[in-house]
């Protein structure tokens, strides 16, 4: 098993925000996480790459390739992070260094983990920008984050996460700032890369159509718990938990009403 999460519990003071969560991700497997805003999706992801805030209290076990991550020191964790586990963060602007040109930021994990020179790293950075569908990559790599649009920044985040071809890619709402045509390309690219490299994927999103196209199994979270974990087909055909049912029903209604809208059959 690539990733084994057991009884993960995260507390801030007396508030429990992730409550006894367990799940597995096998090599090459794709797990979706959907659910309520504030239910613990991001904190669960951050726990896996060891980036929870210091004030968080964590218990339970997270094993990656059999190695317990919750015991590791910062330095040991950072050698795993970026190299074996890549993450696309929910809010791209906060994950980027505002004072560093984005090309250097993409090249950084390559230089740290693969010992590339700056020049080689920059060449790879331009190639990665091209792969994530950024127009004019020569200029993009020389831009600072504030000089880019929301969707351009989001693709920089994806390029950084993909730079070292990680065994596990965690993508937290990776396409919210992209128009649907670019989203389609980026999802295809993620799909291809994950298949080619045999990487595993954890895909966190509120966009149920996207999650269902990208993953095989889906965990539904509410109030810090995984209330249901099932295959995509089973979940959409007959969810058993009341919250999952309501979530899926609402997504289906919205999907239907848009279809009616574009065909002019709206009431």
């Amino acid at each position: 098993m690539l990733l084994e999460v057991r009884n993960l519990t995260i507390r801030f003071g007396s508030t429990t925000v992730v409550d006894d969560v367990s799940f597995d991700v096998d090599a090459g497997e794709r797990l979706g996480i959907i659910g309520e805003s504030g239910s613990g999706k991001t904190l669960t992801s951050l726990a896996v790459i060891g980036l929870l805030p210091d004030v968080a209290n964590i218990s339970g076990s997270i094993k990656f390739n059999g190695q317990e991550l919750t015991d590791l020191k910062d330095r040991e964790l950072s050698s795993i992070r970026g190299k074996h586990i890549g993450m696309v963060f929910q809010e791209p602007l906060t994950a980027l260094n505002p004072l560093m040109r984005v090309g250097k930021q993409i090249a950084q994990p390559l230089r740290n983990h693969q010992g590339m020179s700056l020049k080689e790293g920059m060449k790879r950075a331009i190639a990665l920008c091209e792969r994530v569908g950024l127009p004019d990559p020569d200029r993009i790599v020389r831009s600072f984050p504030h000089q880019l649009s929301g969707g351009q920044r989001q693709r920089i985040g994806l390029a950084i996460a993909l730079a070292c071809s990680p065994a596990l890619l965690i993508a937290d709402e990776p396409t919210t700032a992209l128009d649907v045509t670019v989203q389609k390309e980026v999802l295809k690219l993620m799909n291809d890369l994950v298949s080619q490299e045999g990487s595993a994927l954890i895909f966190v999103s509120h966009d149920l159509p996207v999650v269902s196209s990208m993953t095989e199994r889906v965990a539904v979270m509410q109030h810090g718990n995984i209330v249901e974990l099932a295959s995509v087909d089973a979940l959409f055909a007959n969810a058993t938990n009341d919250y999952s049912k309501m979530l899926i029903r609402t997504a289906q209604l919205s999907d239907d009403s848009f279809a009616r809208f574009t065909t002019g059959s709206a009431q």
Partner: protein
Amino acid sequence: MTVILEAVKLSRSFRLPRTGFGKERAMRLALVDVDLQVNQGARLGIVGESGSGKTTLARLLLGLDTPTAGFVKFRNEPLVGQDMYQFRRDVQVVFQDPRSSLNPRMSVENIIREPLECLNVPGDQTARIDEVLTAVGLSLDLRHRFAHELSGGQRQRVAIARALAPHPKVLIADEPVSALDVLVRDEILGLLAGLTDNLGLTLILISHDLSVIARLCEDVVVMQNGVIAERGKTADVFQFPQHEFTKKLIAAVPRLPSNS
């Protein structure tokens, strides 16, 4: 129909970084000659290509950035030279990236109180804070939290609550529901619809989610490459798109497997 906010031949270009020593610094035309009239009480949707100038247009309409050419009119007068204090009371914004737009050193309560105080909004501030927090579906327990102690969707809702607190006449919202689950999203859309229907709020909604625009906005403009590629009634544009890009956009909307 009274036009409340207007863009007149609005353009904005940015100097781009050099691509090498001695090379010319090229300009990026982020927005080119955009004309747009927003009627009072309307709900206007802006969709378009990533990087097409939507956020740039929003910042210009808000007077937060200076156009390279053209100008913005508010209530039929050029924005430049107007009483910005009154303008800020009337026109509020929800930014695309909530985390970086919320003051990290302030509690949720103070983030929402700030515009009430700065803009001298009459009435009981604490009651108004509770009211808007409840309206966006946030527990009042969150009032003492800092922005970094919230989830992405909770931050987005704090940004909406802050913008609505001073009872604005116009709300410009840049991807305000992109971090919300569909149940909460529907509540927020209902809230915004109610405010325009009942209180005459004018809404300019920027979103990549075409179903959100279809549900909420009667009119839509489609942007590509710094210009408005197509505009019209949302029902017409989404049903009979004329421009190639609009067609591509509608065709690329992801569908549920069980439904398609």
